[in-house]
């Protein structure tokens, strides 16, 4: 190219200038001018009037919320392009092996047709905290409850100032108890629908008389006229509560309450017993995970992003795979390479240029991620989930200088990826 320049005539170079002019004009108006303007604004105050030097840049590098956003962007950049490319590569290779591979590819590619905003709305439902609404938590809770069913009386607590004190998640009698009178163990905080159907009026008659240690566990709550700590008509006993009796620290007997909430251990006589309702009676039901809470929100967002972009990676990798000569793969297999070795030692090296394109495109894209965070993360988690582009957008309404500084920061961060792509393009032209 360079040596031909000398032989150009003036006419030819002016013709070239004419042909180039529209493109140059477009680039100047649509790209260079806005960049220049943003740069100028980033050196000015909130209203874009007075010059403030580098103050905006100092501000964005010290503000804790921006630091958080930068950290999140770093996580996105490290995790997402690699994971998406890996998933895309795997899907592309595996899709070759199944029948109706086109159908599989179409399904995998379909999320690409969905805008990030609609995907965000959809996944808001998937990640919903309540297992009644969120698919993911419904699965998690279902699996958990199969192995560890929730206890019957979760949420119960001892009546204030009465016989029981909390200990190790369970409840135990405050004072040592004796066999002379029934032990009253009042609980509150139980919804009527939480009690089993078999529960009957809390029993007193059966245990007032009799010998040995005896007592009653019951729901000590009446809307009207209930006496705290006393068994009233209308208060139900709690059946099936595991009761342990301890004497000087060791369990001497175990039993379970009857339908009227009573228990009776005739063999235990004397005094200095401690009655304990073990923690297992009150285990809280597993409520699933707070996917969109501060700690899991970024992984949840990344999951959605991968769901959307894996199809893109797969499509490009599939095209790249088609270009690999079949003979090379055959040769490797004949030489005794396993499928994994073929993938690692032959396919991936041959595909490196394609994979680089996928990786870089994703890196630049991920850097700009914004709409997904805005839509999917609930307001309360937008601080922990924040990314630079989101902070830029937020600042733009009150502080155009700071917002522009963030825009320039994003540009600078994206530049290496873009430059590498340009560099590669020129190399492949040669």
């Amino acid at each position: 190219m360079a040596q031909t320049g000398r032989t150009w005539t003036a006419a030819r170079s002016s013709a070239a200038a004419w042909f180039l002019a529209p493109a140059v004009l477009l680039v100047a108006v649509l790209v260079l001018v806005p960049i220049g303007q943003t740069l100028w604004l980033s050196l000015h105050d909130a209203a874009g009037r007075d010059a403030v030097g580098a103050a905006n840049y100092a501000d964005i590098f010290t503000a804790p919320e921006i630091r958080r956003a930068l950290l999140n962007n770093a996580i996105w950049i490290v995790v997402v392009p690699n994971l998406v490319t890996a998933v895309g590569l795997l899907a592309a290779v595996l899709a070759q092996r199944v029948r109706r591979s086109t159908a599989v590819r179409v399904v995998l590619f379909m999320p690409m047709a969905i805008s990030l905003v609609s995907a965000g709305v959809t996944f808001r439902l998937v990640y919903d905290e309540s297992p009644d609404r969120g698919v993911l938590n419904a699965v998690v809770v279902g699996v958990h409850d199969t192995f560890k069913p929730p206890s019957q009386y979760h949420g119960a607590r001892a009546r204030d100032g009465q016989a029981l004190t909390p200990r190790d998640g369970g409840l135990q009698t405050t004072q040592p108890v004796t066999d002379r009178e029934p032990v009253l163990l009042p609980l509150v905080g139980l919804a009527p629908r939480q009690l089993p159907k078999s529960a009957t009026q809390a029993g007193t008659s059966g245990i007032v008389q009799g010998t040995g240690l005896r007592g009653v566990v019951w729901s000590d709550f009446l809307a009207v006229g209930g006496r705290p700590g006393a068994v009233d008509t209308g208060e139900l006993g709690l059946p099936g509560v595991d009761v342990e009796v301890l004497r000087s620290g060791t369990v001497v007997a175990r039993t379970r309450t009857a339908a009227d909430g009573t228990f009776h251990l005739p063999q235990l006589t004397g005094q200095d017993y401690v009655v304990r309702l073990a923690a297992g009676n009150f285990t809280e039901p597993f409520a699933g995970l707070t996917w969109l809470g501060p700690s899991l929100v970024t992984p949840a967002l990344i999951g959605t992003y991968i769901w959307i972009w894996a199809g893109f990676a797969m499509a490009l990798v599939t095209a790249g795979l088609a270009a690999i000569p079949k003979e090379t793969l055959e040769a490797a297999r004949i030489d005794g390479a396993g499928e994994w070795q073929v993938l690692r030692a032959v396919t991936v090296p041959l595909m490196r240029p394609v994979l680089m394109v996928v990786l870089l495109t994703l890196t630049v894209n991920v850097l700009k991620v914004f709409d997904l965070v805005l839509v999917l993360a609930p307001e309360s988690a937008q601080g922990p989930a924040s990314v630079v582009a989101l902070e830029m957008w937020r600042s733009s309404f009150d502080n155009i200088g700071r917002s522009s500084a963030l825009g320039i920061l994003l540009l600078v961060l994206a530049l290496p990826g873009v430059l590498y792509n340009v560099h590669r393009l020129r190399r492949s032209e040669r």
Partner: protein
Amino acid sequence: MTALRLATIARTAAGAATGCVLLLTAACTTATGTAKPFAGQTVEVAGSWTASEQANFERVLREFGKQTGARVRYTPGGSDLDVLLSSRIGGGKPPDIAMIPQPGVLARYAATGAAKPITGQAAQAVRAHFSPQWQRLGSVDGRLYGVYFKAANKSIIWYRTEAFTAAGVQPPRTLDELTVVSQTLVDSGTAAMTVPGADGWPLTDWFENVYLQLAGADRYDMLAAHQLPWTDPTVVETLRAMGRYWASPRFLQGSWNGALQTTFTRSVADVFGPKPGSAMLYEADFVTTEIDKLGLYRVGGGARYFAWPSVDGTGEAVVAGGDAAVAFTDRPATMALIAYLATPEAAAIMATRGGFLSVNQDLDTAVYPDATTRALAETLLHAPTLRYDLSDMTPRTFGGGNGASMWRILQSYLAAPQTDPAVVAARLEDAATKAYGVL
């Protein structure tokens, strides 16, 4: 104009063509004096209302159009009204009128000159129909900029009557009673309160109500103007009271983690939906629309409210919100529409359809569709102490929109209610200093 007459008209056909005859405002006289003075002109109004509120408001605008010949177009901005406005103003083509909920935003537009003062007949109409306090709320440096067409009563707590009956409790009147009632509700086996912490503004409303009760109106005003630092002991005390309530076991539905995931619409369903999870909901009057939409509990029957509890059970201090019509052009048609929005007739069109409170003094409260709404509106008109939503009076970056620092700080406080309130107060003061500094 008799109130009865107006009420009848509003009830039968809100858009009665004779409406203008009833109006005393001078603006309307011009409207009738020359038939259809604005024929062929277009007036654009932007607001945050969507869905049924939008439909009702468009009825009001149509009625204005019918009287004056102007074509009125409504642009719904939703929760991004501020985005819409700032970009339209930046582009030099603002809507003629915007319904702005935050006095802080209004003050900013007044300062930059984007908002136009209300003058002439429109100003007279506002003076005739609104109390001095609401006029002041619409003014910046003594000049009138906004008409509070819609108002909200934010000092109420909604409850499900069946949950209260099952627990045998009565609506509390003091803050201490609120704790006792909540504990009894918990003992009866239900969570006490649903807090939509996924949205930031309900938390700021919590703060404002407790603060107004604990610290009083004077300090409230000083804090709103940032003449009082957020590290003031009264703020710390308020935060402590909130944190104590939030941290009490089972007081909040789903605990604080769950509260932070609960959005406004969901919160209403959590209390008044098919599977109610708690007994009380702190939200402003506009919840009625959502309760009606769910259709399981009748407002005034299964769903009732009590006034925000005070320290000693006396006096009623109300935190109010609203939407002010603010002019961004000073064309005669714009001012005429502002004048029209200040009339009781315009308010009646929306009031009859529910989900709307007006602070127009000359609106007959008989037009409200039910006793609950009427009572809410009357509280706004007659409350001995009324203060505007504090966070809406602060700069937008601090209290007035998605991602505002006060919202975020209160959300992180809800996420960890055991945090030392003094630390939270210090964070608030930090953010406030920054936000007021930029202004």
